[in-house]
């Protein structure tokens, strides 16, 4: 499999505080990669470096390279809006717009002018909702407020919104941490389904979730990448003692 994302010697600073230290790793196309590690280990910061979401935080600094499809996204002249379209993101807390279900999904398509006409817009919204496994639940109430949806549905709506602009990579920052087990299971099934078309990077505190959905798992600690391995190896026989201690709950 070809590498979709290739990171080398990445350092990241919040002011003078170094949050990431010399991270290098490769993420192949159409792979689910999970990032695990204790709070404050840098995994979410690292996730946000992949679509330059950290640019929005003042006083931050990045050294090193993040190549997506071979292009350094930190090179000068990078179109950050296009980057974020290509590398979509879903957050811990669902954040639908105060609009209808339809408009939530249509929004990105409209501002990026991806549709040819009204029928095409509708088709794209429908496809995104189908891909996010939400269509059957909302098809008869597309014009009602997104806030009327359950927490799990709102999160899938946010996924649909991310998918609507045809990203290639989807970053998920603890997408199911605020959801009940049934809604969580739906998100996890969706991740496995989306893998067919997208490269997915997921940050999770739920170790079992990382074990269930990911192909490979990376363990972070104090801003460093401690270990990266196929998920089944990571959870049955990790190489590093630090990883073993973390996943068996000896600290963290």
């Amino acid at each position, binding site marked *: 499999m070809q590498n979709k994302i290739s990171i080398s010697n990445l350092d990241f600073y919040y002011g003078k505080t170094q949050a990431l230290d010399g991270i290098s790793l490769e993420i192949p196309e159409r792979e689910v990669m999970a990032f695990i590690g204790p709070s404050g280990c840098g995994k979410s910061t690292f996730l946000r470096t992949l679509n330059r979401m950290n640019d929005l935080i003042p006083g931050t600094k990045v050294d090193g390279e993040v190549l997506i499809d071979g292009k350094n996204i930190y090179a000068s002249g990078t179109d950050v809006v296009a980057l974020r379209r290509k590398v979509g993101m879903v957050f811990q807390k669902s954040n639908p717009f105060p609009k209808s279900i339809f408009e939530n999904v249509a929004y990105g398509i409209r501002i990026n002018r991806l549709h040819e006409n009204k029928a095409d817009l509708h088709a794209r919204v429908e496809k995104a909702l189908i891909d996010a496994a939400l269509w059957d639940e909302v098809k008869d109430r597309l014009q009602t407020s997104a806030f009327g949806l359950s927490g799990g549905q709102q999160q899938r709506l946010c996924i649909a919104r991310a998918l609507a602009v045809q990203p290639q990579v989807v970053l998920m920052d603890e997408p199911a941490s605020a959801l009940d087990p049934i809604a969580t299971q739906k998100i996890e099934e969706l991740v496995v389904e989306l893998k067919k078309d997208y490269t997915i990077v997921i940050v999770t505190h739920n*170790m*079992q979730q990382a*074990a269930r959905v990911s192909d490979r798992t990376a363990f972070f600690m104090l801003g460093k990448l401690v270990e990266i391995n196929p998920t089944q190896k990571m*959870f*049955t*026989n*990790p190489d590093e003692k630090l*990883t*073993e201690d973390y*996943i*068996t*709950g*000896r*600290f963290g």
Partner: protein
Amino acid sequence: MEYRIIDQQLDLLREKLLLLGSTTENALQRAMKSLTSRDSDLARQVLEEDKIINQMEVDIDRFSVEILALQQPAARDLRFVISVAKITPVLERIADHAGNIADAALILNDQPQIKDLIDLPFMAQSAAEMLRTALDAFTSEDAAASREIIQQDRRIDEAYKRVFNDLLKLMIDDPTTTTSAAHLLFVAKHLERIGDYVKDICELNVYLTEAAFIKHSVEE
């Protein structure tokens, strides 16, 4: 190192397994003694106490499942629970073989003794010794010791062949011994099987300590 809730459960699981192991070893020793000392009361005791071993097996099974469901162990913890869950039925089967030997003793003790049982006590002693050291190796998580014990099974296999040939010759030479000799053949087979089961326990200890599956491999 921090003491976790799961540690308490894993310690208890280990204790339960070791208790099953020592009870099984004891059953094997006493079954053989009932045969060599022609003590049918002892044989009946072994058979009676097999129920306790069966109950221990069920208890460990239940507890292993409980730990898997509630503690969701990973890495070495997971391998430990899996190893215990797989060693438990192996021990129970060893105890069944001990029961079968006790059954044979009940029949043989009513017959005239046909032969001094030189290789059979040797086989039984070797099997019991292997079992004890295998459980020690499991407790100390010593994979090297487990690998050594696996090699020792050859001695039991060789003794089995000798016993088989001796008993066969005896049956041909003196057909009146056939009934007793046939029962002794079964005893020898039970002991040979016990050696194989102890190997399984050793392989599971290698899995626990090194995460390596050596069953059916060239290493065997």
